[in-house]
């Protein structure tokens, strides 16, 4: 299945050229979008995604859905990257070292169960 807008966004992140959409009032959102989900403005421009983000919350999932059967247990986190927040799976960092405020970078990995692309966070090199 292809998802125009989303697929290009993931590909850009994989290439180290991640972006988000900004409206004239500075609200951030992610594609595919035709209007700002926060204020309805139709003029959206692509802005570079900050290189690092900060973990706002996370959970180690022990009971997965079938699409993550081979990943469990795994850590899913929400991290803030400037005006947008992203949800991804934490890689290259043991679960007990993930904490609120941990600085991460965003990348694209592979879901070991489905072989599909997956948004991942990795510890940011200081």
């Amino acid at each position, binding site marked *: 299945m292809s998802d125009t807008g989303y697929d290009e966004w993931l590909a850009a992140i994989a290439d180290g050229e991640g972006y988000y959409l900004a409206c004239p009032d500075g609200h951030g959102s992610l594609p595919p979008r035709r209007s700002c989900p926060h204020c309805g403005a139709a003029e959206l421009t692509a802005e570079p995604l900050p290189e690092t983000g900060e973990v706002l*919350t996370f959970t180690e*999932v022990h*009971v997965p859905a079938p699409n993550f059967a081979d990943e469990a247990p795994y850590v*899913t986190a929400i991290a803030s990257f400037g005006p947008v927040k992203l949800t*991804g799976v934490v890689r290259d960092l043991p679960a007990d070292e993930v904490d609120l405020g941990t600085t991460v970078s965003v990348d694209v990995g592979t879901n070991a169960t489905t072989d599909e692309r997956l948004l991942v966070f990795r510890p940011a090199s200081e």
Partner: protein
Amino acid sequence: MTDVRIAGVGLTKFGSHPERTGRDLFAEAALAAREDAGVSRDDYEEIFYGNFMGELAEKQGHQGPVMAEAAGLDCPATRYEQACASAGVAFRQAVAAIRSGAADVVLAGGMERMNNLGTAEVTQSLAIAADELFEVRAGVTFPGAYALMARAYFDAFGGDSEDLAHIAVKNHANAMHNDYAQFHREITVDDALESPVVADPLTLYDACPITDGASAVVLVSDDYAERRGLDAPVSVTGSGQGGDKAALQDRPHLARTPAATKAADAAYADAGIGPDDVDVAEVHDCFTIAEVLALESLGLYDHGEGVGAAARGETTRDGDLPVNLSGGLKAKGHPVGATGTAQIVEMTKLLRGDHGNSDAVPDARVGVTHNAGGTVASAVVHVLEVDR
């Protein structure tokens, strides 16, 4: 505007009934509600029916006509899908139909069949209520989503897993007096804390079970009830719905549920009451942390104060504001598309005095129900009042 009265209510026993068809479950609840109401079959004008995952569980779309047949009624029937708030939304539309004068007698209800799927399939099916692109693909399960909110709550406001365990203990204790509940088993705080981790910090006892069941409510106009001399002491005086961004990542605060605040504010304004007038509440505790978020969004507690309410004994059966006397989703069970109207059934019986826990609230006049979809991207709140 026409006043709305609840003329009859019905439930199946909640539990694991993997062999029972959805139509059989709904038939049992609908026929029970019809018998309780004592309204002539010919007078039913419309059915408002909630169901979430019927395509996945039974490969059955277009469930409205199927369920009208099951209920033994010959009238139009429409299915509403709003994740775990499906029946709450259906009920809200039923209320609107009577208030507008479009109908005098309608049936609202919901059904969910889940246990014919395995736990893994149910987990996958429930996950479709989350944002597919940005959450499901990043491994967010439903317990996972509420775990993300629980950790954010602890960080923002304090509280801990032991506080949440007290909510599970309370709701299991309440279910002991509810014949329709899935669990009749008291648990301790230690049982909850020592149960297996599902998505940390949430454990098995923070989560509601997987439930098969159905619920139904007969709503009538005040005029109709009077004309027919119906015994219908409970009125629906307030209705409100709120919405939020589908994905947690698109919300400004990860430990608040403003959709429920909007729904509650609208329902309270509609009923002409405030949170201080609420005597008893049934809230959407799909996970223990969800009860906390509900109490705070309903204005019954300030942000940060709801987490300790059960541990302090304020929301227990003997407390000042009993919450989830039915046992809640946690112990009564959560057939997701049936839960919204199941809460109405429980609240109606609590207020009119024929619930196993009515003796805990003998003087209660105002009850509030709170039904949520997804991570509260949808919320429906109703105010019920009883003639005393």
